[in-house]
């Protein structure tokens, strides 16, 4: 375990601000903070770097989702960095997210002691981030219509849709590329082509695993639990119940609004950690605290959000929290693009080379590993 840990923010006006430190007696110089910051400016990717600064071995973490922030560990002489690299990275992610969510509740000593951490963003979270940028969601819709399209043409289309000359196609496309939804490739010397490799569907699934677990382990809540889930998915008429597959054209429709809301929750890593814990089974606050390493106040506030968004429900008597709906985003094979490709070839909109490259990519993305 490191000797000390501290969290620094580079504020545009005040400069380096040490937001948290453990132990509180730790003394840091401006030079040290400068050198750590400089180390991380040489690349923009998430990274944990180890540097020897003023007789201290410091491992510092930085990622692009928290610009200007870094978490640093003062290592012990006998710390084997490679052995603890993964733990330090995961704990730094946890600290930065918690600093964003509830800075007053960040207790660095306790976090180190408990070994609390956060995993790298899941595929589902990467999918969710698509729906948080309107231009990206728009591009996905366009790619669903086209399957394959030249980047230049997409760029012009996007500018026209957004009515802005300054929008960058690459920026709007980045979340789709990061999530593996599209692939961008140069075909020949001049044609940059975008291929749709996956499509995604976002919905509230019934909390099947949690219900099954309750059936086995919490028979006292089962009937009530089933009723609460049923009230959402199959309410008595005249309500039509939940059907996310109904086609909608209006971007402000309740289904689209709900998708944005759910995506906003999924991308928040601390929320996602709690959601993941509740997916398998109902839990008490104490169990959730144990499982997630999050302070009670943060859990309380996230669960309150879950309750108001009809994601979780509380069984007061049993002091249990359980999912009432399970926000889910799943990827599927976009089979509908195959006839599109065939039409595009026959109408000479794309070359044989582009079509064959597309089929290659689809094959590679969706074939079962040997």
């Amino acid at each position, binding site marked *: 375990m490191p000797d000390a840990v501290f969290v620094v923010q580079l*504020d545009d*006006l*005040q*400069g380096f601000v040490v*937001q948290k430190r453990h132990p509180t007696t730790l003394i840091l110089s401006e030079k040290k903070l*400068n050198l750590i*910051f400089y180390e991380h400016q*040489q690349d923009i990717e998430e990274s944990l770097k180890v540097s020897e600064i003023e007789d201290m071995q410091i491992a510092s973490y930085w990622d692009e989702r928290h610009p200007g922030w870094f978490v640093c560990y003062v290592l012990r002489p006998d710390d084997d960095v490679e052995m603890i690299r993964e733990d330090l990275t995961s704990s730094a992610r946890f600290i930065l997210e918690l600093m964003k969510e*509830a800075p*007053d509740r960040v207790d660095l000593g306790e976090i180190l002691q408990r070994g609390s951490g956060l995993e790298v963003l899941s595929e589902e979270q990467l999918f969710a981030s698509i729906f948080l940028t309107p231009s990206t969601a728009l591009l996905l819709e366009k790619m669903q219509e086209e399957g394959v399209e030249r980047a230049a043409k997409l760029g012009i289309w996007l500018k026209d849709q957004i009515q802005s000359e300054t929008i960058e196609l690459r920026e709007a496309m980045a979340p789709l590329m990061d999530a593996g939804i599209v692939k961008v490739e140069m075909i020949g010397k001049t044609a940059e082509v975008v291929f749709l490799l996956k499509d995604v569907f976002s919905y509230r699934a019934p909390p099947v695993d949690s219900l099954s677990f309750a059936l086995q382990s919490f028979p006292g809540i089962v009937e009530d639990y089933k009723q609460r889930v049923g009230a959402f998915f199959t309410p008595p008429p005249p309500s039509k119940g939940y059907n996310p597959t109904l086609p909608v054209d209006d971007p402000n429709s309740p289904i689209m609004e709900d998708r944005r809301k759910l995506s906003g929750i999924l991308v928040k890593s601390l929320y996602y950690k709690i959601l993941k814990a509740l997916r398998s089974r109902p839990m008490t606050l104490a169990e959730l605290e144990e499982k997630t390493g999050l302070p009670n106040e943060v859990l309380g506030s996230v669960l309150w959000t879950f309750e108001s968004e009809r994601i979780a429900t509380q069984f007061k008597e049993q002091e249990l929290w359980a999912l009432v709906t399970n926000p889910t985003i799943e990827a599927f094979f976009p089979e509908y693009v195959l006839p599109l490709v065939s039409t595009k070839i026959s109408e000479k909109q794309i070359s044989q080379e582009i079509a064959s490259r597309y089929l290659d990519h689809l094959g590679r993305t969706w074939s079962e590993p040997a």
Partner: protein
Amino acid sequence: MIRSVYILGEQGNIVYSKDYAKSESAESIVEFLVNLTQFLRTVDLEEKTEFMNLAAQRFFYAVKGHFTFVFVADKADDSSQMEEKMEQLVDIFIKDFSELPDPATQMDGFDAKVDEIAVTMVKVAILGYAGVGKTTTLHLLRGETLPLVHDPTIGVSIKKLPEEISTANIVLWDLAGQSRFSILWAKMVANAQVVIIVTDSTLENVLRSKKLVQLVKDEVPDAKVIGIANKQDLPTALTPERVGQILAIPTYELVAIDISYRDRLIQIIRRAILEGKAEAAAA
């Protein structure tokens, strides 16, 4: 420090807003403020300024008539000072602007008044290549004894000017000039209201420094940029007029090791800050 100022109307509509520094996601702040406005309709603050913490920030708010006034500030901010500033803001707005049929579109002159209230910190960045005298200029501004040995700056050195200018604290950012630190310059000049480009007045250095002028204009187009023709005591020094011609920015002479230049330099910075404010108001 006050990071943003918001005035919301009865329906939670934003009548006025201005950002002075980066804060948490602006979109979620607006959503929060709309909810806050609705909530405040149900309580009586008795014309007092109250605050609440949200993540790393502190929101100070007051209600007068149909309007809700909000400062997004830091937790470390002195609440009595914030209350005083809030009273000033409320008074000015209610007296001169609240009766307008559409205050959101008829607020000429209000911006400058808000600046007077809200600007508590002004960032002045000092940029230039290695060895031109940036840190010496910083010492001069702070009235400090000059170190005998040259100790190159690492990254950035941030110090306050002992004097306030127009009731604002001046924060001086002395950026390291060595080429290995050039990757930091664009980030470090962010949000600067004034950028001082220091040259050693040699032709070679002044010509190179043109790149810095361009960088500053790209990164902080609203900042006031001034040139410093330092080391005017050396025989090879170009005149400040010539340096200014080459850099195409207003440029002033300096001998940073000569304490008699201190007041003059502070006046130059004061003028740049005031001119910058006037230009922002006119825009």
